[in-house]
């Protein structure tokens, strides 16, 4: 049954656009870095960067904002990828920000370090004097992201002003800025989740095992399955069970939902996503905090 005919012409167009953006980043900025989370979107970004600068090396480092609550598979994959691409890997730890008193750990059962990452990210951007941070954000993910530019300007506090964004015409990107300001750049803005997976399949990109079905200890919270880890607090009614699951997005363990799935290959994943009736962020606890949760986090400087 593993026959899946997909038309790849739109992928070709999306790839051309993303490569164009990658090259603009390298040309317009002095100190860009690629924000690598270990998730599928940032894996695709690295692949696109490889293609954009071939036979040269990717001309910027990978920056991982490490919450300390990672899946081990993510870290292994990250280290391996850095080695293969020859990119410098910079890891900025949320734990360090907490130790320095830059931010305070959240409390309660829903505690997550997801929001704390913003502090670590902004500190890293300042310390490393980055003028552009390349992210895998996509406009189809979330309604505040639907408003995002390819070249998104951040003021000296790292903040996004959604009501006063620079107009972006044709493919002319304006990356001019003053000292201390920076840009977030999103080369795969126009990709959907399905495009990303079709592209991974077409390009035969090796993926972390978390995206394929595996047996894992999970528990159900408010209708979503969450991966269980020793540092997670359970409510009284919650029970840890072992099920066949896979991740649709990968982030901090504390807020990454998993889906019940037996998909063990890319064809099955693409088929599953094409038929899905729930968005990938439907399982992300961080987006459920309020209607404008993403917009508020983005304004502060989140990814």
């Amino acid at each position, binding site marked *: 049954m593993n026959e899946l005919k997909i*038309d790849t012409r739109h992928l070709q167009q999306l790839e051309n656009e993303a490569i164009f953006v990658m090259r603009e980043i390298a040309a317009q900025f002095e100190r860009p870095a690629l924000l690598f989370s270990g998730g599928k979107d940032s894996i695709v970004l690295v692949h696109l960067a490889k293609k954009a600068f071939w036979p040269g090396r990717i001309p910027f480092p990978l920056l991982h904002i490490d919450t300390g609550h990672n899946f081990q598979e993510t870290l292994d994959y990250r280290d391996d990828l850095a080695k293969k691409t020859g990119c410098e890997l910079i890891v900025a730890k949320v734990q360090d920000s907490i130790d320095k008193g830059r931010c305070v750990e959240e409390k309660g059962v829903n505690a997550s370090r997801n929001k704390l990452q913003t502090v670590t990210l902004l500190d890293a951007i300042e310390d490393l004097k980055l003028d552009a941070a390349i992210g895998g954000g996509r406009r189809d993910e979330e309604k505040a992201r639907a408003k995002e530019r390819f070249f998104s300007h951040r003021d000296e506090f790292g903040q996004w002003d959604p009501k006063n964004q620079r107009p972006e*015409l044709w493919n002319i990107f304006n990356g001019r800025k003053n000292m201390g300001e920076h840009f977030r750049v999103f080369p795969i803005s126009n990709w959907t989740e399905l495009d990303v997976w079709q592209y991974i399949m077409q390009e035969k990109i090796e993926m972390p095992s978390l995206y394929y079905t595996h047996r894992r200890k999970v528990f159900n919270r408010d209708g979503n399955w969450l991966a269980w880890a020793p540092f997670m607090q359970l409510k009284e009614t919650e029970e840890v069970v072992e099920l066949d699951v896979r991740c649709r997005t990968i982030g901090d363990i504390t807020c990454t939902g998993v889906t019940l799935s037996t998909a063990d290959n890319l064809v099955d994943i693409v088929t599953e996503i094409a038929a899905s009736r729930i968005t990938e962020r439907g399982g992300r606890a961080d987006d459920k905090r309020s209607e404008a949760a993403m917009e508020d986090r983005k304004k502060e400087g989140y990814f």
Partner: protein
Amino acid sequence: MPSWLTKKNMENTKPEIGLLRFTTAGSVDDGKSTLIGRLLYDSKSIFEDQLDSITETSKRRGNEDVDLSLLTDGLRAEREQGITIDVAYRYFSTPNRKFIIADTPGHIQYTRNMVTGASTADVAVILVDARNGVIEQTIRHTFIASLLNLKHIIFCVNKMDLVGFKDERFNEIKTEIEKLSAQVGAKSTHIIPISAKFGDNVVDKSENLSWFKGDTLLHLLETIRIADDYSDKCVRFPVQYVIRPNNDKFHDYRGYAGRISGGKIYPGDLVTILPSMLVSRIKSIDVFENSLEVAKSGDSVTIVLEDDIDVSRGNMIVPSDNLPEVTKDINVMICWFNEKPMMLRGKYILRHSASEVKCMIMAVNNKVNINSLEEVSDDKDVKMNDIANISIKTTAPVFVDNYKKNPVSGSLILVDEATNETVAAGRNDYFINSFLQTLICGDCIFIK
């Protein structure tokens, strides 16, 4: 099975698969959000959790129906005011095509956002309220779509249910639209009667509008031809970045990375480098580990030349038998974006393809009232959302084509030196004067 999926239809239309970018213009009152909601909903592109979330919000606000505009209005300020302020991008696909919608606001104070959304679109979908016919807003949207030279404009005469689905009313409006299209020189127009609220002619063919023999909106979007029809000759390759690996395997490799526009290139082509005017041949066209036999408009590639000559970012590689205009004086039609009005004799940074030069605004030649298409003769101040023809002098030569010949080498933006903000977008136009003349000579009797 939808009625348009008949065997005959299938044979007649060979869908051109790939990506179609379209922009929608109109205010909430025109039913634009409802139309987008309808397209997303009927093509099964709204997910359950999204629908749950907007259903709950609608209920909380005391709305009877699910307010589909909540899907597209992504910012808190937009939801508070119930209007679209900034361009939002939405995605959906059918088995035949993938679509990117740039959903743009319709109010006059957001003309600049409309221009932004339309700049990357192939097609504009303009909504017309069947009760009101062509109004100021329709004229403005049509004008902007034709300024940006979009390949097609689809007019949806919406709310046909409120005029009893009558073909007489549709035909009246159709006549008005045809007149307007001719006046602005729109390339290819299509007019469809619809009811977004009830879904007539959006995805499925309407029984209420059985007198209409044309396509439904979705079918038209799926099959409309958008392939570039540029001649092979007007190829432009702005050099974005120079790739020099400096490793053992590719020690002498020197590739020019960029994106082709306006035609095809082949290895062996005789090319001229601007501004140096040096001539060489294309040795290879590389994409990752492959070398191509041909590359076409839109492709991001790396070009290697036969000769070792000096080429850097901002230079342009063009066919030697078809050079763009190399000039320091250009005439452009601009839309002003910034709250700070344009300064005559003011200095700005001009960004054009991969190059950046300083420039000065020399003169305002014409200003157009975009609601009536009349020339504004007594007012030459260019303020936010204004559209005007201006003359610019640059400090270094730019390589430009007429926007209609090649939109990449024919477009530019102006950046404020002090704030770094993008203050204007412009298209290079040789025959702007005669174009304006047509606009001004035509009778402007559309406003009711």
